[in-house]
């Protein structure tokens, strides 16, 4: 229970989303024309690749999982008006944690290894996120700067870790570890990636947290009015640490799913998709979806569709994926602007 009725907000927003999405698509089509590509084939490849083949669909689901998690990474701290744009770093530390547990405890059965690995990832990612929160509390350094600095540091930490003799792949040309032991690998259930469970649990968890727990209330209240919240006993520093921990833990889990489910090893670049950071798309998704808990998974899935389509466009038509990234950024601007304008109409 937060603001006014959820259903009315969703219906209003549905119209808004569709409209702005259409405009963004049109803008992309325009770019394609300017760069002399066929807009019809381009746009249909973009939107339909996920649905044309079973492979395309499950590829989309696979991207959706870490994307959803990194969306929560940004949005949880956004609730208290802090911008955690270094989610990549938290994802990377989570991945390192998962890899180490999988490697070291790989002789144990997988029903032990996998939960521990996720735990390590959550604590690693959460702890790494909390560093930025702590820096903000103590030194007032904006998380925009600190999370980015940390994210560059963690990229090198990944490179460092994968080149350690203990873990490094003896053959590989690319910086990566050797394959994880079987107990640390997440299986597919037919075509379905088993780690879809992580995404589903995350959706339920975030919903319950924000809508039904006292901690969720404290986070929301701190974001709405930090002054009033502090006056009535909600201490900001604790909320900051808690939010950053939760946010980082989400990203960490996302990193673990990539390491244990997709690549089966820790590899430089594991937290990227189509050459860009998952957490970047998480930020874009979060800004498009706003605070609406129903909109987040839907928007995340839509973003995944676009990413799969972008890959297909680059493969088959040589259209650079960056065109889709640009479209997504434009979509964000439009959504945020339109949402603001609608808010203002309702409260003159």
């Amino acid at each position, binding site marked *: 229970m937060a603001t006014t009725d959820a259903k009315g907000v969703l219906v209003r927003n549905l119209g808004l989303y569709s409209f702005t999405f259409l405009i963004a698509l049109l803008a992309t089509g325009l770019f394609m024309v300017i760069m002399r590509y066929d807009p019809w084939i381009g746009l249909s490849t973009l939107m339909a690749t996920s649905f044309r083949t079973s492979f395309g669909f499950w590829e989309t689901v696979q991207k959706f999982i870490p994307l959803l998690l990194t969306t929560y990474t940004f949005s949880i701290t956004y609730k208290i008006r802090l911008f955690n744009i270094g989610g990549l770093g938290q994802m990377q530390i989570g991945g390192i944690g998962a890899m180490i547990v999988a490697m070291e405890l790989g002789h144990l059965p997988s029903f032990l290894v996998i939960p521990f690995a996720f735990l390590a990832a959550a604590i690693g990612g959460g702890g790494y996120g909390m560093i930025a929160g702590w820096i903000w509390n103590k030194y007032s350094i904006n998380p925009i700067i600190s999370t980015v600095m940390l994210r560059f540091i963690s990229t090198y930490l990944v490179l460092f870790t994968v080149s350690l003799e203990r873990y490094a792949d003896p053959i590989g040309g690319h910086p990566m570890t050797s394959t994880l032991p079987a107990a640390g690998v997440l299986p597919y259930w037919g075509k379905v990636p088993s780690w879809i469970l992580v995404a589903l649990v995350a959706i339920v968890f975030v919903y319950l947290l924000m809508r039904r727990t006292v901690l969720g209330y404290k986070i*929301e209240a701190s974001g709405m009015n930090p002054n009033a919240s502090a006056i009535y006993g909600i201490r900001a520093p604790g909320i900051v640490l808690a939010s950053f921990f939760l946010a980082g833990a989400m990203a960490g889990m996302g990193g673990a799913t990539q390491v244990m489910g997709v690549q089966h090893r820790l590899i430089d670049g594991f937290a990227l998709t189509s050459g860009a950071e998952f957490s970047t798309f998480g930020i874009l998704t979060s800004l498009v979806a706003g605070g609406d808990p129903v909109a987040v998974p839907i928007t995340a899935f839509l973003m995944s569709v676009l990413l799969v389509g972008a890959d297909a466009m680059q493969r088959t038509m040589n259209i650079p994926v960056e065109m889709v990234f640009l479209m997504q950024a434009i979509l964000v601007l439009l959504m945020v602007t339109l949402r603001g304008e609608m808010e203002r109409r309702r409260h003159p």
Partner: protein
Amino acid sequence: MESGPALSAVKVRKSFGSLVALDDVDFSVRRGEIHGLLGENGAGKSTLMNILYGLYQPTSGEIFIEGNPVKLRSPADSIKLGIGMVHQQSTLVPAFNAVENIVIGTDSRRLDFEEEAKKIQGLSEQYGMGFPLRTRVGELEVGVRQKIEIVRALYRNAKILILDEPTTFLVESEFEQLKTSLRALAGQGLAVILITHKIREVLSSCTVATVLRKGKIQGVLAIQEASKEKLVKLMFLDQSIEVTDSALPKMEMASLDRSEKPVLQFLDVYTKASDRSPGLKGINLEVYGGEILGVAGVSGQKDMAEAIVHPENILRGEILFKGKSIKNFSTVEVFEAGVAYTPEDRVKEAILPSGNIVYNVFLPHHGEKTFRAKGLLVDWEKVVRVSEKVIRDFHVLTPGPKTEIRRLSGGNIQKVILGRALFHPIELLITHNPSSGLDLSTVEFIFKKLLAIRNEGGAVLFLNEDLDELMLISDRIVIIHGGRLMGVRNRAEADKVEIGSLMVEGE
């Protein structure tokens, strides 16, 4: 004197969406007048003045200066035409000194500090308004800053000077000084407009009065023909509430025996200084059940409230609530012990603006076990029921508990703030300027609630910078200055002038 008005507004209308703030208002002022624009809070006075100063645009209507029609699209336009304004909230740049503040925005290119300083010194002495030129304005007192704002307008050759509720932060002695300066200015041919809701001020300092009620002009009177009764009749639609000269509702205070033991005690309390206040420096006082203890002062009230509500701020000394020390209490524990608090700035400090009423009602009670469902989960149904009760008992005008609180009027917001504090019995209410900016009937409602707490044996710590309000319903008044207690006065022996000088000078 010139014939014809210096400034006139004709058929000015201003609506904000469906809300009509000014309804075909005609207003004019002549040179040499001190013209009071009188009306209760929410009547539209500030809106009209903001239009005259170019900050708001009228929905329709015309403005004339010396008989010529003008368009005031921004303060720059108004300034060029000779209109100067002193706002209720300071509009100076705290990081700059007086000279810098006065000089910015004017035409000359170069910044010759010494030359400007001399000019400004001359100007301010001409009207008896001296102030330090080289100190950062943020460090100066409110009364001094007001003088700087007046000289800032004069420096730009203002012929029409508007002052918006100038006495909000002044005590008697400072008000007398202001009156002298205004008379000097009017004598020089300026037209002075004084916006206020205090009848007594209009009667003692103005030459003409225009009364505004709910966006409509009710009448214009020369002061010789005006009287308190006539003005009250024009100001208020609801004549059932009897009114004092400061346009406050007359309140009945039954004589009561206060409790034997004090509910709250400050024992030599010290708190940290900050940039807006020196903190508390050894405060000793008691608040008893069955009394309203008023706290008068220019600053320091907030520190008192925060010492109680956030005991971790106490540097030295003890605060006892019902005989027990609260030094190691957390804020949540203080509230659970039976204390409630309504802060000074209702929008910035008391509510979650984008949350609904239920969300806001929960704010002071988020730590209470009564609202928990299963350990960490919140029992929102219970909070909704409590919110509905608050809405009923406090006559909050709203479609329902799920309405966003910022859609409510200031008065209704204050009612929610007070209502959520009182829905279960408490023994001490700390309330800071609860009635600021509210219309008469809401003020009466709120004061009645405070008196109800007192009459039922509760204690009220009434923090207020407005001496009129303090003297209206306090059983005793303590005066705080520079973090120290200057004295205690009983209701019967309280004298406004004496208290005022204690507030400002400390003697």
